[in-house]
């Protein structure tokens, strides 16, 4: 059987694409290992999705998932290993070797935390170094921690941890923090966080667990040491694109290049939506919008193919 459309990913972009595809009566399949994507790691409540002035990540995912399931879309709970194109047909290979065919594909596979690539990071992963504050944060009760990065995820991590830990250092390697202003105001009120700009992390040190970090003060070029038990990595994300390397072009940040009008990649019939593409703002609502655009564009594409 050849599906009209296969959607890869179960975050906001993939789920919205699925809902739109089913409303256009497409024969669609959605492949994902888990639902929710990065919303699963949301450390604070979501307050910028219209209709919900405050909702937890888990609750919003549940609502998204229930909505998607009501459309009757077919769902395959698996991981995609490779996407190929043979003539006008896409072949999608999943874990275990099984494959599916479709006329169009939407990549909505999101992204994974970007690693620091400094000495000690791999060695102390799970021993103080964490990419999931929501999971591991409670283990750092009354301890001192560092957050690397100063974007929205970094500050949301700080807000979440401020109820748990003793002291927070937020390290930004540039001259100023990147988060929205409201997050900065909340953090200031906690009296627990110290923001250090122009700080380039050099090394994570410890014995069985993390004990300290070394960073270079870029203004003075001097190396400084901070005694911390935890290091939370929040320096952005790496788009999950390993399965589609040959069919798309990439930005310098490894995001898939798409036409903003229709989410089309360089391969006809192959679309990319959400955090995986080059779109500037990585928000739940922009991911949803791109999922809708990609599904409607795929519908147009399929109409022309007939």
């Amino acid at each position, binding site marked *: 059987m050849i599906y009209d459309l296969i959607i890869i990913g179960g975050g906001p972009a993939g789920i919205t694409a699925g809902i739109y595809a089913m409303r256009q009566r497409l024969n669609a399949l959605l492949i994902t290992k888990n639902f929710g994507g990065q919303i699963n790691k949301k450390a604070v409540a979501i307050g910028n999705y219209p209709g919900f002035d405050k909702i937890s990540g888990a609750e919003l995912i549940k609502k998204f998932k229930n909505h998607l399931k009501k459309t009757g879309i077919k769902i395959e709970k698996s991981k995609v290993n490779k996407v190929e194109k043979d003539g006008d047909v896409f072949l999608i290979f999943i874990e275990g070797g099984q494959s599916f065919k479709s006329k169009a594909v939407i990549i909505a596979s999101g992204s994974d935390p970007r690693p620091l690539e400094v000495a000690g990071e791999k060695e102390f992963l*799970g021993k103080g170094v964490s990419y999931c504050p*929501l*999971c591991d944060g409670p283990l750092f009760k009354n301890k001192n921690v560092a957050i690397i990065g100063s974007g929205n995820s970094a500050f949301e991590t700080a807000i979440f941890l401020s109820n748990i830990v003793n002291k927070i250092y937020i390290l930004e390697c540039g001259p100023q923090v990147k988060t929205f202003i409201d997050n900065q105001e909340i953090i200031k009120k906690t009296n627990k966080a110290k923001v250090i700009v122009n700080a380039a992390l050099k090394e994570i040190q410890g014995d069985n667990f993390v004990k300290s970090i070394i960073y270079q003060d870029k203004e003075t070029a001097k190396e400084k040491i901070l005694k911390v038990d*935890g290091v939370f990595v929040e320096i952005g994300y790496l788009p999950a694109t390993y399965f589609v390397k040959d069919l798309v072009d990439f930005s310098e940040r490894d995001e898939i290049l798409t036409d903003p009008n229709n989410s089309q990649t360089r391969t006809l019939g192959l679309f990319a939506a959400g955090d995986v593409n080059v779109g500037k703002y990585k928000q739940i609502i922009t991911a949803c919008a791109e999922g809708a655009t990609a599904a409607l564009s795929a519908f147009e594409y399929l109409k022309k193919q007939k």
Partner: protein
Amino acid sequence: MKNTVKVFSSPFCVYCSVLKQFLTEHNIGFEEFDVSQDAKARDEMIEKSKQMAIPVVEINGEIIIGFDKNKIVELLGMKE
């Protein structure tokens, strides 16, 4: 033999939920410790696992870090 299964988790951790759901679906009874509230359990878990990460599962005294389905299946002698 009856298995002794302990789960160290916290309410917000997604993989903890996935793990607990897996055990429940397979009718495996387990004792749950919320390390975000229970300081004694937190210390015990860190000491035993040498990890500052959850979930951690203890099956008959053996420690498994993360949701390692294959290892859980093996230690419990489950048929999938």
